[in-house]
């Protein structure tokens, strides 16, 4: 799936990385606990979360993730967006709640990989 399709499925607003929307991603995870992302994530390239601090970007960066989606309509401070921009990570926000956002992407073929 292309990141552009995630944007369309979740009717999301892109906060940075507009030029990277044609990047292919295969799997995703949803979590508000960054230590769990570090513990259990393997090759997932999309992170859905309700957390908005800089550590979300750093965690994604450590795990080589390509896209962060904020759920429940959350928008982080500009400095957090800038951190993602510097790391070539696409950042977007959707009004969908976590469960629904994950469900929609899973139904569309994005898997979880355990």
């Amino acid at each position, binding site marked *: 799936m292309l990141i552009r399709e995630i944007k369309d499925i979740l009717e999301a607003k892109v906060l940075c990385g507009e030029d990277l929307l044609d990047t292919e991603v295969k799997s995703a995870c949803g979590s508000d606990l960054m*230590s769990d992302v570090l513990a259990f994530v393997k090759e997932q390239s999309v992170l859905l979360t309700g957390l908005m601090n800089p550590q979300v970007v750093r965690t994604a960066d450590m795990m080589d993730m390509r896209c962060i989606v904020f759920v429940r309509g959350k928008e982080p401070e500009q400095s957090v967006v800038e951190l993602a921009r510097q790391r070539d990570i696409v950042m977007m926000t959707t009004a969908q709640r976590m469960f629904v956002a994950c469900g929609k992407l899973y139904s569309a073929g994005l898997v979880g990989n355990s």
Partner: protein
Amino acid sequence: MEKLKLHYDVDGEDFTSAGEASTDVKRVLRRLGFDSDTMRRVAICMYEGEINLVIHGGGGVADVEVDENEIVIVLVDHGPGIPDVEQAMQEGWSTASQTVRELGFGAGMGLPNMKRYSDEIAIESTVGEGTTVTMKIRPAG
């Protein structure tokens, strides 16, 4: 490869900048041509360690030595120390504050994660004096 030594001071007051040293280590390993699995393992160990320095240790120093066979990370703080290291190694055990938990950490996964992703880990801690964590990560193959 000649042994490369990196040194970082980790600010104990600033949670927002926690992870900068880990980002730099990962960048150095990428430049040196390490495989992505090794880079990720080192980055996770270093990052969890850095978070611990900030949220528990009141800041500290991180020293990293890199050669092609092994990456050694040594984290030193002069914080309160860990009374029971065995207990601290258990998943879910945490003394972190509610504030730290709201930031997505402090769930008792830090030390277990560091153990999970390193080949060797040694923790020396004295209550009232501080903690030294040494981790060794060896590239596969």
